[in-house]
């Protein structure tokens, strides 16, 4: 297995199945992506497209019914799939950390929030209790919680949603991880709080050279905060590219429809276009090569052939036989010129 030298996280051909009573769910199918040090990658797609399954697989916290049937996961050169047990427990929380969607559910309701931060520090550094408390207070201050001394002893129900989310970020960042997975970190929060939380994550990751995988279904959020965006549909990554370029010139028909459905920037309600159809039933054993084919207006006979992500340029890839390639002519031409 070859490794890209500067890749912190490398997911290659990862397939995840769920065995259920009603059949095997093919949740992820040969998913590949890399994340460089200090980079922020946005993972976008509809609910059920496999965004969370991928992040849980990276963290090694997938459901008991899940089975990784193919592929590899490497973090800083270490094979994460070979070390699922004790080795993973030392990595998780220290090198890899995650912010979950609903802070009120993810936090322990009957333990003071400061103690929950101290627990993580204690588990991974083994320093004595007073030092853990000191570090936890610093973490609370770092996520800009006013009056950390007083909030240290608060229970989650005593804090607002935005404050709980800050506590969860403090827990995730307590051991200065190199990779942060943020799964819909601002869903359900006010826009003002959302802006504050996103800036906080953005500033901290810039200061610490931390890589961030931001999972969201809000495309405008991904565009505002991510270097690159990967679009997922029904367990496939269908397009990866630099945020601004992907937004301006989506090459996969699904990316194009997703952007057209986003209210951000639209002039009128009638200008929004919905995506026809639904995700295919992932329990099917006859899933087509292109899982978007049944919803796609560009579908043609050539679409039934085997499909994988192919590069359009050094940074932009798409998995489509009939990609909207004319969308980025300028960039391709300049690439040819420089390589000639």
């Amino acid at each position, binding site marked *: 297995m070859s490794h890209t030298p500067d890749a912190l996280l490398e997911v290659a051909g990862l397939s995840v199945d769920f065995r259920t009573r009603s059949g095997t769910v093919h949740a992820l199918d040969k998913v590949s992506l890399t994340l460089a040090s200090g980079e922020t990658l946005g993972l976008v797609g*509809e*609910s059920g497209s496999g965004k969370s399954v991928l992040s849980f697989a990276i963290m090694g916290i997938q459901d008991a019914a899940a089975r990784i049937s193919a592929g590899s996961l490497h973090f800083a050169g270490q094979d994460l799939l070979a070390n699922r047990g004790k080795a993973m427990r030392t990595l998780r929380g220290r090198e890899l950390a995650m912010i979950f969607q609903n802070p009120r559910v993810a936090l322990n309701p009957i333990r003071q929030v400061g103690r929950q931060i101290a627990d993580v520090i204690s588990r991974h550094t083994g320093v004595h209790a007073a030092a853990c408390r000191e570090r936890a207070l610093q973490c609370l201050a770092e996520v800009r919680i006013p009056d950390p001394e007083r909030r240290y002893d608060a229970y989650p129900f005593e804090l*607002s949603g935005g404050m709980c989310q800050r506590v969860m970020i403090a827990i995730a960042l307590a051991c200065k991880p190199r990779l942060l997975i943020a799964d819909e970190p601002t869903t359900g929060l006010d826009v*003002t709080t959302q802006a504050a939380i996103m800036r906080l994550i953005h500033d901290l990751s810039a200061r610490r050279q931390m890589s961030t995988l931001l999972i969201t*279904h809000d495309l405008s959020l991904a565009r*505002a905060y991510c270097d690159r965006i990967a679009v997922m549909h029904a367990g496939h990554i269908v397009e990866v590219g630099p945020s601004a370029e992907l937004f301006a010139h989506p090459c996969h028909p699904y990316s194009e429809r997703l952007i057209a459905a986003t209210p951000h920037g639209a002039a009128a309600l009638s200008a929004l276009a919905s995506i026809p159809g639904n995700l295919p039933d992932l329990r099917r054993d006859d899933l087509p090569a292109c899982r978007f084919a049944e919803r796609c207006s560009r579908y043609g006979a050539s679409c039934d052939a085997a499909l994988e992500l192919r590069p359009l340029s050094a940074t932009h890839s798409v998995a489509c036989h009939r990609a909207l390639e004319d969308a980025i002519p300028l960039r391709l031409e300049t690439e040819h010129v420089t390589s000639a």
Partner: protein
Amino acid sequence: MSHLLESIDLQRYFPVRKNGETRQLHAVDGIDFHLAAGETVGLVGESGCGKSTLVRLLTRTLDPSAGQVRFRNHDLGLIRARDMARHPQRKNIQMVFQDPTDSLNPRYTARQTIAESVRLLCGLGRAQADARVDEVADWVGLPHALLERYPHQLSGGQKARVGIARAIVSRPALLVLDEPTAALDVSVQTVILQLLDRLKRELEMSFLFVSHDLNVVRLLCDRVLVMYLGQIVESGNTDAVFHAPAHPYTRALIASLPGAIDGQTPGAADLLVGGDPQSPIDPDPNRCRLLGRCPRGLAPCAEAAPVLSAIDDSPRQVACFYPTLVQYARH
């Protein structure tokens, strides 16, 4: 001029007991607004600003402490909330709730959910009710086969349609929507918003649309009300408010949108300093409620509370001593 719905100095306080003394939490603190027939008004603000309390007062599921709720010139505030359920006006004001899963009875099929509303509000018999349910299912684009399903057998978008069908089956004049698309995917959200827009025109309803998704409010609403700590701080035509917000809080809300309206990058969100709002418990009546978070915050702001008033000859009203006066050019 007759308004469909009018709220006059509407107030709701909740008593809070702490250390033996009772203090008042001012959830809704003197709200004046009106809504014309056929109009769509958006209500925006942070969580905890009193949006939901205001909605409950207007839909008469909660009794006001003071003030009036006038609907077609009748003071609905005189009807107690507990009697409202059986009041003939009930069918004229209906509501669509935020979470399509939590707001449907898990043991009722979609048909039973909608039919219950028909029987209670329209007094129709079983056969007529069934025909009515089929009709309203067509309005909201719900295939009839799905009517026999339970909520857990429906997708999020389908459940949202059931919630909308239940609300509009009595042909209300006013539909109050409390974040109807917050739990939905972006593509499903588009379908539901377009459905609501079409129903509004076809059934000639007025909407009060509560949301913290400003992009959605911008696309759907004629007018917008911005609420902060129990009071309206700015109101006006949606286009004008979005392109030239006059109140510092409105400016912060709009600047907080990722990649804001005019394509700028995030950063302007620092317009709100501090972070946490003041306590809504017995707030100082002689002080601006944004003080402490407002980047301006000058001496007069700590001596008197600004009242909602016009800033130019447009319908815009702002409660601030130092509104940002930018001429809004319509293009």
